[in-house]
């Protein structure tokens, strides 16, 4: 074979390789367009769902990404007006990713299911909005509430505070409530992120677990002996208590009522393969904890919430002991499936109904026979 022919063959194969990748990228964009009505040419990623501004880190108004649709005020749910109609009871569900919804199908996140339950009991009386944002820690929620949510005059705040932030290397602070907005290059390949997800799905769980355990062990080995938390870090849990009380005070100061839900995880005592996989992934995000102390942290967090409930007379939706720890209810270590979200909605619903029935003003609005706004 002569040299020119070799070069020609190489160029041909490189060209085919590029064409192959180009078709994959085009297929990827066409797929997004058909499935999610995504823009064909511009950037399309979950980074577009959130924004950091004077209200802190929250959902970007009018953003959409796959099943997640944010309304013009930055909430998941129907459009609402700033002014609350007289006949309406407005409920904001707030928290982090478990409330925002990751694995639930469209309109099956717990706030959506709660909206349906409430409007079934009190037809057309409730506006229930999902005001949660992934990664929203308690101090951020307090800040976001006082700066933005309170403008909508919510009657009730349903709050699921995550304790995971407190086992991170750096705990949430009262001051640092914004985040650096990730910069987006002018052209991103959609194929890359899809390929990563597909590869992860294809990789056997046992291999992923082995790799992550190895990474955890490496990090732990490189630290001082007392770096690892063998038991839940009590100073951090005290901070958790303080921050939740801060949110309660902020919400009450603006005249809204608050319900707090207890947080749980999917790890059952049987420790089946699903549990082991989830625990490894969870631990990978909280390397300072041991498996045991990580699980105990949730138990301590629930205890704190129950104590706060008693001390501050806050209604508690005690979800934790009432949700089965199986993959039917959890998509991972603590995010819910449709079924899991339904249970959360049910417990929140019960507490909201109690509040309504014990508050003559809200009750009269709920049962008012006038034409309510249908959602």
């Amino acid at each position, binding site marked *: 074979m002569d040299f020119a022919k070799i070069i020609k063959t190489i160029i*041909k194969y490189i*060209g*085919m390789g590029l*064409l*192959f*990748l180009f*078709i*994959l990228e085009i*297929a*990827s964009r066409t*797929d997004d367009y058909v499935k999610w009505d995504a823009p064909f040419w511009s950037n399309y990623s979950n980074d577009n769902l959130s924004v950091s501004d004077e209200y802190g880190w929250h959902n970007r108004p009018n953003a959409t990404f796959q099943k997640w649709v944010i309304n013009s005020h930055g909430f998941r749910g129907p459009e609402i007006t700033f002014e609350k109609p007289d006949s309406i009871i407005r409920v904001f569900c707030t928290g982090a990713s478990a409330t925002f919804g990751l694995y639930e199908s469209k309109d099956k996140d717990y706030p959506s299911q709660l909206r349906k339950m409430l409007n079934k009991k009190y037809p057309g009386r409730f506006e229930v909005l999902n005001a949660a944002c992934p990664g929203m820690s308690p101090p951020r929620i307090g800040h976001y509430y006082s700066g933005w949510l309170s403008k909508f005059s919510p009657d009730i705040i349903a709050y699921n505070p995550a304790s995971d932030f407190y086992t991170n290397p750096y705990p949430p602070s009262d001051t640092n409530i914004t985040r650096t907005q990730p910069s987006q290059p002018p052209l991103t390949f959609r194929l890359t992120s*899809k*390929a990563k997800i*597909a590869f992860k*799905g*294809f*990789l*056997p769980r046992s*291999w992923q677990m082995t790799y992550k355990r190895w990474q955890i062990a490496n990090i732990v080995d490189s630290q001082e002996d007392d770096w690892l938390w063998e038991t839940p870090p009590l100073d951090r849990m005290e901070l958790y208590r303080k921050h939740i009380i801060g949110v309660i005070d902020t919400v009450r100061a603006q005249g809204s009522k608050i319900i707090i839900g207890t947080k749980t995880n999917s790890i059952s005592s049987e420790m089946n393969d699903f549990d082991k996989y989830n625990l490894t992934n969870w631990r990978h995000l909280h390397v300072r904890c041991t498996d045991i102390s990580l699980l105990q942290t949730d138990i301590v967090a629930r205890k704190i919430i129950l104590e706060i409930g008693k001390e501050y007379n806050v209604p508690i939706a005690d979800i934790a002991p009432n949700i089965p720890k199986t993959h039917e209810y959890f998509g991972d270590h603590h995010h819910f499936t449709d079924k899991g979200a339904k249970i959360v909605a049910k417990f929140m619903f019960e507490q909201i109904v109690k509040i309504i029935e014990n508050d003559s003003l809200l009750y009269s609005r709920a049962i008012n026979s006038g034409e309510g706004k249908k959602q």
Partner: protein
Amino acid sequence: MLFNSFAFAIFFPIVLLLYWILPFRAQNLMLLVASYVFYGYWDWRFLALIALSTIVDYITGLKIQNENDILSDGFEKRKKIWLTVSMVTNLGILGFFKYYNFFADSFADVASSIGVAIDPMYLNIILPVGISFYTFQTMSYTIDIYRGKMKPTNRFFDFALYVAFFPQLVAGPIERAKDLLPRLLNKRKFSKSQFYEGLHLILLGLFKKVFVADNLAPFIDKVFRASDPSGFEIWVAGWGFAIQVYCDFSGYSDIARGCAKCMGIELMINFNHPYIATNPVERWQRWHISLSSWLRDYLYIPLGGSRGGERKTLRNLWITMLLGGLWHGAAWNFVLWGAWEGVMLITHRMCKPFWDAHTFMQKIFPPLVRRLFKIFLMFNLITVGLIIFRTRSIPHLWQLWGNVFTFKGTADPLILMPLVWYALPLAVYEFIQYQISRDNWSEIEKVSGWFRTVVYAVFVYLIAFHGASAQSFIYFQF
């Protein structure tokens, strides 16, 4: 090890690389080890069964040939004894692991129906994957030697490779020793064209399995698991299952053939567009060809084939299909399915002279319309059988038929959507490929590489991003 698993994605390139850098003799030895690793990855304990079948058939093959060569007194009797040893071993393994509980259960049912209560002893055993395939394969080896159609090999490890060759070990094609053994015994040469054809087949097989079959599975399962599905739903699920089982099994065969081709080894075509068959005979000439030809050569013909008059021919056909059904699984619905297939073959054979003599249809309709009508009719008759195949139990089957034939429930055409979405791309692709090339690789190769790149990219996209997560192949249970 599943073809559509991460483990295989690591395993196969390593095997392929080693294969082409090793010298010929070492290639076979390495392939044998790889085949045992491939099988042992699922459950290493059952490797002993493959080894037992291999040793017994290797020895009996040589012994039978020895009798053929010596031709001393009583050689026919001794040949029969050795053949019996092989048959008893293979059918014994198959019977014990696959059929014991079924027969024990059925016996207890029959006994209880005549008022005798029997508490049968059930065995708590799992069905070894691919047992029906490799036992049939090794049996054909000793039978062919017995019949003088081939000579045995004295190379034990090469024979062991023939039994355990990993691409076709667990779900076929059921290769005859006279075809595959020489390919394993002779030196292979790397051919770029054959290698590309192998990759083409692997991709097509994965597409059939991961995109079509596994994505259709949940829709079909939902209907067959429902407590009271509508007649229309059952029928559509029956169509869906026909497509699923074809894509699942022919996808496996394509991947098996593709892997073997990448190593310069040819395996037989197991599926040849079965759903364009216009009659039951053609259907079995196109569907699971390696099994249907095995049943023809080692069951139908020994039973007498078509030699003993029409009545015996029909009987032989029906028995063959009945046992063919039982081969698929130890349950009565498989026997019934085999019986249905047998009825179709018998009916076709009995009615053919009438149809051939009456040409009024030919006068009214053009050939294409008649052909399409026959294909549609045949597809639906196959679907009838596959609904029997897919049921959970006989009472469940009666319930399904009841709902189908009383048109129970509503008919929502939207339930056809998964079929259209998942099966149509494959149907279009297979149609175009057939029109261009008659499935002949030398013709496919002539199609522009740029155009093929585009098609392969679309296939890869659909497999990677719209494929269902790894599910085992339906035919593994057989």
